């Protein structure tokens, strides 16, 4: 089992695990509350909820172009 390559690999694994252990974790109920609040606060900016004029709508049926 000795050999510098496996030590290097192990060091990478430990570093990755340290990164993962250090991630700030939030309780699921808190995350759900935050998600819900975000959606409610930004509902006005959401075109799928509030609709938008046909001139801005990038998905409106396109007029056919023709060569002059």
């Amino acid at each position, binding site marked *: 089992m000795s050999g510098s390559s496996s030590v290097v690999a192990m060091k990478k694994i430990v570093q990755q695990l340290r990164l993962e252990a250090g991630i700030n974790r939030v*309780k699921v109920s*808190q995350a759900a509350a935050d998600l*819900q609040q975000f959606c409610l606060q930004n509902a006005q900016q959401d075109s799928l909820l509030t609709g938008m004029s046909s001139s801005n709508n990038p998905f409106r049926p396109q007029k056919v172009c023709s060569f002059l």
Partner: protein
Amino acid sequence: MAMRQTPLTCSGHTRPVVDLAFSGITPYGYFLISACKDGKPMLRQGDTGDWIGTFLGHKGAVWGATLNTDATKAATAAADFTAKVWDAVSGDEVLTLAHKHIVKTVTFTQDSNCLLTAGNDKLLRIYDLSNPEAAPLEIAGHTSAIKKALWCNNDKQILSAADDKTIRLWDRSSMEEVKTLTFDTSVSSMEYVADGEILVITYGKTIAFYNALSLDLIKTVEAPAPINSASLHPEKDFFVAGGEDFKLYKFDYSTKEELESYKGHFGPVHCVRFSPDGELYASGSEDGTLRLWQTAVGKTYGLWKCVLPEDLGAENSEQMYTSAPEIKA
């Protein structure tokens, strides 16, 4: 009469949830542990269902899981022929207790000093956790695999249910069998309510209530479908049951009347337990989820908030998560 209820669905397990247990009420609230065939029992906050941690170490399906009263220790029973004791605060494995066959059930005494285990080797074992190296006391007698074992009568006696269709009451000091109840069919679950010394047993479509000291029958109630687990409310006004038709049933304990039934799970319900304060009950299912159900639907508790119908155009109770608590009358 039929009230709709949105349960809190706790996902995370990848295989059927076969057992669950609540701790007592601690200064940090109460906790819930779930045993799953994926081998990774999980600890959750009891009133919100928030995942706290997963106990890693078992190499097989975990069949039984329990917490001690103050939720500082956890114990699990698994198909890898071991029972493990864990530090529930750090998640570390504290003890591994080797057995000769699949371990199905584990339970602490009230003082958390002893652990009772049982499983497919048909033996009841009592471990002294202050001296874990010592050999456990063994009680033999059952003629087939033991499904559930519990301390009762202030930890002076033991109740065990096995596939030999019997439930046996044992005296701890003499290690002798005191009484046996025989059934026509295998008992699917057993719950002990210390306050009042009541034993809740399920078999077939029946939920039966016995006096835990004398093993005299108090009453039986028939459910619409085969029942896998039932739990009695701490105040003994209701009991809940779940089984093969995926539904949760709520019954009045005194009148035996079926009050409510709730759909939600996508598979048979394997275990049902009331929380220590009786405000909610948790169910574990073949579908791999746990669901938390309110006892008093519409009440504000935990993540449930009562919202009046005119505010949402919906039913009189909704689940809402808010950062600023608004209690509407």
